């Protein structure tokens, strides 16, 4: 008998038992769909976190100075000396404090005012959507200019164009020269609710000389650790740090944080995938269960077919193709359901999801594998039935 005929017979059996076939498929459908959604969720989280962290600035080192004794901060010029290293491409020292801003009779809520220099834009990946960023001249000439976060603009100005307007920060007048690109909330606090001013002006405004936070951008991904050790060495010299003492400064490497978080989300993905994999396995057992019933129920049919001349392989392939088609179609429906739910979650629940082709393949292959292995077991069982006993079966 030709393969095409066996296929026809198997398909016919599936169609003749629509409800049973569908119920069998259901396990696989749910299994495949949940694997796809779960893994997409995990991968989406990984990508989301990675993007957020990278948006803080690439190759970023953050220096925090706690200082010791009377020596609790670096001067702006000392901080800028880090830029002389060949491993460092830019340095942006920062002074920050909370303050109130006022435009006309409108007051803002508490806002973080950050004093920095022109390099801050590249180091921290801040861009202006309107106007311009701080320039070297603003720092040198201590111009009272300010760049506002998107939220600040909305609070103070509404629909009025803020560029060129004067605002008051802690009573001092600043001219708005730029607006930062809106970003939304991030896990590291929103940049929409900040005001950037020249660091030299900030020192006076906040009545504090020297910087305690410095952002340093390394020259490249491979220079990050070099820059880190060089800066640490310099700082040790400045603060005359010896090992027994409490540390007076800290240098963070952004990539370390990134790697730690990526590792966490990777574990999350594997875990979610594993849980979903179990449901796929349960789906497979469902196939086996129903096929088992179907083989028993159809013992007589097998006997009749054998009496009419069906060979072992004819029966074997009939049942094998049946379970293959059921798990295959179930797998395909599962893929569509999984993609659809992923899209739904991403769009309506605003969750970051990333579905890769690999996941789809793995889920589908696994469902087929489950179908084949369980199907093969039962098909073999069916094909071995003796025709005499099968015909006698009621």
């Amino acid at each position, binding site marked *: 008998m030709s393969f095409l005929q066996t296929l026809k017979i198997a398909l016919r059996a599936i169609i003749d038992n629509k409800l049973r076939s569908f119920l069998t498929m259901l396990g696989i459908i749910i299994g495949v769909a949940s694997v796809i959604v779960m893994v997409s969720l995990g991968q989406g989280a990984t990508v989301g976190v990675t993007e957020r962290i990278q948006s803080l600035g690439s190759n970023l080192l953050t220096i925090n100075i706690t200082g010791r004794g009377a020596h609790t901060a670096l001067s702006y010029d000392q901080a800028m000396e880090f830029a002389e290293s060949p491993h460092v491409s830019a340095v942006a020292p920062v002074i920050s404090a909370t303050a109130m801003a006022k435009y006309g009779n409108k007051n803002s809520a508490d806002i973080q005012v950050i004093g920095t220099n022109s390099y801050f834009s590249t180091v921290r990946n801040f861009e202006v959507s309107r106007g311009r960023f701080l320039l070297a001249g603003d720092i040198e000439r201590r111009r009272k200019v300010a760049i506002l976060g998107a939220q600040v603009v909305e609070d103070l100005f509404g629909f009025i164009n803020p560029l060129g307007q004067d605002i008051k920060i802690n009573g001092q007048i600043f001219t708005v020269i730029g607006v930062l690109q809106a970003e939304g909330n991030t896990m590291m606090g929103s940049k929409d609710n900040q005001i950037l001013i020249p660091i030299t002006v900030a020192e006076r405004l906040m009545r504090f000389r020297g910087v305690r936070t410095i952002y340093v951008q390394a020259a490249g991904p491979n220079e990050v650790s070099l820059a880190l050790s060089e800066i640490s060495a310099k700082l040790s010299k400045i603060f005359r740090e010896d090992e027994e003492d409490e540390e007076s400064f800290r240098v963070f490497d952004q990539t370390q944080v990134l790697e730690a978080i990526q590792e966490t989300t990777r574990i999350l993905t594997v875990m979610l995938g594993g849980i979903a994999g179990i449901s796929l396995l349960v789906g497979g057992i469902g196939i086996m269960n129903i096929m088992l019933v179907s083989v028993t129920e159809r013992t007589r049919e097998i006997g009749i077919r054998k009496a009419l001349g069906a060979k072992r*392989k004819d029966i074997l392939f009939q049942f094998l193709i049946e379970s293959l088609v059921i798990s295959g179609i179930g797998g395909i429906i599962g893929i569509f359901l999984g993609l659809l739910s992923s899209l739904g979650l991403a769009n309506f629940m605003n969750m970051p999801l990333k579905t890769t082709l690999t996941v789809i393949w793995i889920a589908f292959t696994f469902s087929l594998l489950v179908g084949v292995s369980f199907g093969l077991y039962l098909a073999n069982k069916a094909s071995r039935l003796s*025709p005499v006993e099968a015909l006698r079966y009621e």
Partner: protein
Amino acid sequence: MLIELKDVSKIYRMGKIEVRALDNVSLAIEEGEFVAIIGPSGSGKSTMLNILGCLDAPSQGDYIFNGKNISKLHDNEMAEIRNKNIGFVFQNFNLLPKLTALENVELPLIYGGEKPSTYRRKAIELLKAVGLSDRIHHKPTELSSGQQQRVTIARALATDPSVILADEPTGNLDTKSGIEIMKIFQKLNEEGKTIVIITHDLSIARSTKRMVHIKDGKIVRNEKVEG
């Protein structure tokens, strides 16, 4: 000689007890014969049918079918002989309930490797020959038992086998349909088909040409029916 059983025994083991369903049976059936194997239930006639029909192999002895020793054949070769050389007519019809009459008749042709264009045409002709040309797309449940048995006969004839084996073919039929079915068998035999009917019903056996009485796994009498 078409069918030849030489000292055939069939032994079943039920726990420690050995049951000889067939005990040293020898039987020869020539081509074109119309034979009834008759015996009470438990006499071994079903075992006889299973062995004659190549559904089961004898425990001892040889079964020569058409010059071939069946006792030594592999499963697949037995399946091929069932397909090409033996047509079964069962008491309870054994039609596949989800398939139409036409599809049921097509089955042996499909397993015999015929092309769709050929088996469809042949199956339609066969159903026509048993007078069911207007019922070919009906499922078994939509047919009377007499009609179902005619579908079974059409299916048995599909591959033009050397012998038709009928197991109590009239057992589930009313008298009228039973007579009709026996008429079909007689007509087929007149056309040269070898037919073996297994029955416990003497009146059925009498409408054949030879009766083989079987009891306790042994052939006790072998007589020609006086026409």
